[in-house]
């Protein structure tokens, strides 16, 4: 087990190196002269040269890359031009908001997609099967920002069930004392059910939006994988032995069918982390996505770069986690390693 874990971690290292190189190259590709940009429009030639020297931009590219890596190792992602705050601090403060939303989105998406996929597979050609196909096709066809807006219109403007799409908590509530940064968990720790409900209300629509967008791969894979497992010999034997259909499907087939579904989670996370940016913009969610979007509009590159790097590292880590999880669930993978 330990050697498998080590092997997986080592396999993730080239991806991480690639990510660091690409984000470094992205800064160097910046149009125009960064030094002139930092110095401002009124700067003299000498001032620009001086800034170039302090930023290290007069050094060879490889030395610059070295400095960049050293800064990264110290957790330094540079400073935002507009706020003057260190990017790393801002990202750390905003990450829990994004993480809470993304995780809830994943839970919503699995809660819809897995039962749908199972039901579609147990009755191929039935209404549920067609529903599954329609839902998955619609899920990938609906632009995620559009789904969000429709949900806001229906549930906030028409029905009035949801609160205004303005962040994590209504203005009347104050945030629970920070322990994990997740409002749902923090409010439970603080034994504050009112805040919990308020935070949940704010979360439901954006999480549902994310869920709808990312459920297609899960539902498709669940259906396909259940179909193949249900036609296998051990399921036939279980059925022939007179086991209840529920036992056959849930205990026998479902467990085996889950393995390929776990591998699609990597793709689902790619969907979720990307869609997160758009959903955060629609719902004015104070996460790292909206931080990056604000910076983009102000042509402030350091936060964008920090954001891209953070997301990529998160994604590599999530993929690693999925691999390890797969190894834990399927002993065959462990033996191979």
């Amino acid at each position: 087990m330990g050697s498998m874990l080590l092997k997986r971690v080592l396999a993730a290292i080239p991806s991480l190196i690639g990510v660091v190189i690409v984000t470094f190259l992205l800064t160097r590709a910046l149009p125009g002269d960064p030094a002139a940009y930092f110095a401002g429009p009124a700067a003299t030639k000498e001032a620009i040269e001086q800034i170039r020297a302090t930023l290290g931009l007069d050094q060879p590219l490889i030395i610059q890359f070295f400095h960049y890596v050293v800064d990264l190792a110290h957790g330094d992602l540079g400073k935002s031009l507009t706020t003057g705050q260190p990017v790393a601090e801002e990202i750390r403060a905003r990450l829990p908001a994004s993480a809470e939303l993304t995780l809830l989105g994943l839970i919503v998406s699995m809660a819809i997609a897995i039962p749908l996929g199972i039901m579609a597979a147990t009755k191929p050609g039935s209404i549920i099967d067609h529903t599954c196909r329609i839902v998955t096709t619609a899920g990938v066809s609906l632009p995620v920002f559009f789904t969000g807006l429709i949900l806001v219109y229906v549930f906030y403007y028409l029905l009035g069930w949801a609160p205004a799409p303005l962040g994590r908590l209504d203005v009347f509530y104050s945030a629970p004392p920070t322990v994990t940064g997740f409002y749902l968990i923090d409010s439970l720790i603080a034994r504050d059910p009112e805040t919990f409900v308020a935070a949940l209300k704010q979360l439901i629509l954006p999480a549902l939006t994310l869920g709808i967008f990312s459920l297609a791969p899960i539902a498709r894979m669940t259906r396909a994988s259940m179909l193949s497992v249900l036609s296998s010999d051990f399921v036939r034997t279980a059925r022939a032995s007179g086991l209840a259909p529920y036992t056959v499907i849930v205990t026998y087939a479902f467990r085996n069918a889950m393995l390929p579904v776990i591998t699609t989670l990597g793709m689902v996370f790619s969907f979720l982390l990307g869609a997160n940016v758009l959903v955060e913009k629609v719902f004015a969610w104070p996460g790292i996505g909206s931080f990056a979007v604000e910076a983009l509009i102000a042509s402030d590159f350091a936060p964008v770069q920090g954001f891209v790097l953070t997301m990529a590292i998160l994604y590599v880590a999530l993929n690693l986690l999925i691999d390890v999880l797969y190894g834990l669930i399927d002993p065959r993978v462990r033996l191979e390693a």
Partner: protein
Amino acid sequence: MSSIATDRADPDAAIGAALVQAASVTADTVLPPEPATTFTPPPRPTAPRQSGLAATLSHIRYVLSENLVTGFAFALFLLIVLAAVFGPALVPYDPLASDTVAALKPPSAQHWFGTDQLGRDIFSRVVVATRLDFGIAVASVVLVFLMGGLAGVAAGFYGGWTDRIVGRLADTIMAFPLFVLAMGIVAALGNTVQNIVLATAIVNFPLYARVARAEANVRREAGFVEAARLSGNSEFRIVSFQVLPNVFPILVVQMSLTMGYAILNAAGLSFIGLGVRPPTAEWGIMVAEGAAFIVSGEWWIALFPGLALMIAVFCFNLLGDGVRDIVDPRRRT
């Protein structure tokens, strides 16, 4: 190496006859005795071999008529292409002309989709935007087809370090959540439509490169490649005239499958304020502009461009499945 088939005069005919024989034998044995006495063997399939083009056309007709959804998607696709080509000439209003008196009007006979906060006709804007959105999607898909297709074929055919470099490049791109990488690329290279096209192409690169690599790799030692090599063709000539044409159809399927994603990606980027700028008519921007009015109940500003986007993506996704059925029937789902 490839001399197995040459000693048989017409392998297809032989196999066909054997199949027919087998079919009638099983039919005889499976059927119960009473009907067997009155059983007449099915007429031998005497369909003459069609010429290549006629066979393809009839196959396309078969796929379209058998799957109504695919036919519908093709019709929709035609409509989108027509709107992209003729839309700007046909719309009733100038998509950029503002008319503050008629601002924020709901859909009416005069303005089918209503007007936005500047009084611009939304119907005209939605139709005119088709050309830009469709253009971005097509351009990015063609670009990635060239980049990913060529790199993948080279990697699969030559192997060695070419393969390693292309593989490493694809892995690195895959290490990013795709939309996030596209954001970073556009932010770094500059906020233009060309860079949106480039970014969308780059994030799709691994898909194309991997498919092309796998297909080229399978054909590296194929009989026809060996034959071309023995007749003295250079490796470059073999790649260009033997391997590429074979990989081509599979990449076309990939193109139609990723069209929908390309258009979503581009619209998403312009939704967050990258690439296309207002007042240009573009679906993503129009939804972004309408977003501010959703909470006060002016639904039509965001709804119609959003619907247009959704229909286009939906159409491309269905079309992708249809094109796959036509080109590569083995992968039907």
